[in-house]
């Protein structure tokens, strides 16, 4: 049975009014940082833009918008993905975690604390993506060496070149002490 998603009824939660000429919105419901979210999205809206512009979760950054820089990395159902290369309408029913849902200033995720301790950034623009990538890496097959970490962090570009400290931060979480 096909599910044809149509322009439907329920207004978006906190969504801006539709612009003239905009295509019909499509309703989706997903979990973002542990909270149920129902919204109506333009089918062309990426997950990245929906997080930033509609849900106002601006921690996730837009760098290249083509899957080449990793600044937009979020977790979908526990796995890291580039949110710029996915339409929001493809995520009905999914559980999404952004940097805002990983930790808080009072209760940092261990990877966030490690980035602070190891000075794993300069300008900070790539940092949310780096941290989301690193947090996912902890649950992926990865060898013990710094080179293994560098390889699995290669999808996150840091224009400031903080790579050595980023690897040190990840390793300090994987190998405490």
């Amino acid at each position, binding site marked *: 049975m096909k599910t044809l998603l149509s322009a439907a009824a329920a207004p978006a939660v906190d969504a801006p009014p539709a612009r003239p000429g905009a295509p019909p919105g499509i309703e989706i419901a997903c979990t973002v940082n542990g909270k149920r979210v129902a919204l109506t999205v333009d089918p062309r809206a990426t997950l990245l833009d929906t997080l930033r512009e509609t849900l106002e979760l601006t921690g996730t950054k837009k760098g290249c*918008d*083509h899957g080449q820089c990793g600044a937009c990395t979020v977790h979908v159902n526990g796995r890291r993905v580039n949110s710029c290369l996915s339409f929001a309408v*493809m995520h009905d029913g999914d559980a999404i975690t952004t940097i805002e849902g990983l930790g808080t200033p009072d209760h940092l995720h261990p990877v966030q604390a490690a980035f602070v301790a190891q000075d794993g950034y300069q300008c900070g623009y790539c940092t949310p993506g780096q941290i989301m990538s690193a947090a996912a890496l902890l649950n992926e097959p990865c060898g013990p060496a710094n080179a293994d970490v560098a390889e699995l962090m290669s999808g996150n570009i840091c224009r400031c070149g903080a790579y050595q400290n980023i690897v040190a931060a990840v390793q300090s979480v994987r190998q405490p002490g």
Partner: protein
Amino acid sequence: MNLFTFSRAASVADALRDAGAGAAFVAGGTTLIDLMKLDVETPDAVIDINRLPLAEVGAVPGGGLRIGALARNSDVAHHAAVVRDYPVLAEALLSGASPQLRNMATTAGNLLQRTRCVYFRDTASACNKRAPGSGCAAIGGFNRNLAILGTSEHCIASNPSDQNVALTALEATVQITGARGERSVPIGEFYLLPGDTPDCETVLEPGELITSVTLPPAAPGARSTYLKLRDRASYEFALASAAVIATVTGGTLERVRIAMGGIGAKPWRIRDAELALEGKAVTPDRLAEAARIILADAKPQPGNAFKVELAKRCLVHALTLVTAEA
């Protein structure tokens, strides 16, 4: 980005009913959405196939492995049966893209990955693949990453995939379903050379859906490698790559399969190069001869002439690694 209708297919039958000219299936989205943002892909309809039951990886009765069309590249690369029996495929997958992209990209999507030619990706440039009849800006332009084998006067685009090189060496078969029924296409017959119609890249007809890729039983005692040469150590497309699967007995190369990437309009395999090695003792001269056979018809451009020698050295090194006595 152009407007399109969006639907979710709940079954293969659903997907096929909505498919046809002007429609695109979306799974991982890593190629399609990238190119839609550039207005290179402009489908009228986008059909989300992520809910179809096509993500399984499992044994084929009688031997071999079936990899579902929707199996993610990362899941295939770490699947126990792939690591154990088809390590060349795991190596190839893990050499491609980034962990995030591998979590999204699917087996069938990777089969259909589009070229990284910069003129194909730029709607202001001439490109016979994107806009038939408009010309080819890559010929005489920037073509460092483009093909030297299988090209035509109309297109020199390269197939950028690593997965497809390994699947070619493994002699995979692509399972396809469509309005006219199901069919199986050996990967060696799946890709089309550009010729006069570089916009036609595979034998897939509009509306057809890839459901799985099957691998024949692994050759007993075979060793393999995927060697990828590129401008940086990670997260980069191949300038030249080689997938080699070889069975060596007492210094004799009993069986060998070779496919190369980064240099061809499609994943490149020349059976004559394998025949020049099979049944013979492994010597440096014979390995060099196999490389010479593969590159014999190369038609390089000024910007990628280095690839002729690079590809030869890539292959000889890969063959040397695989055939060295353990």
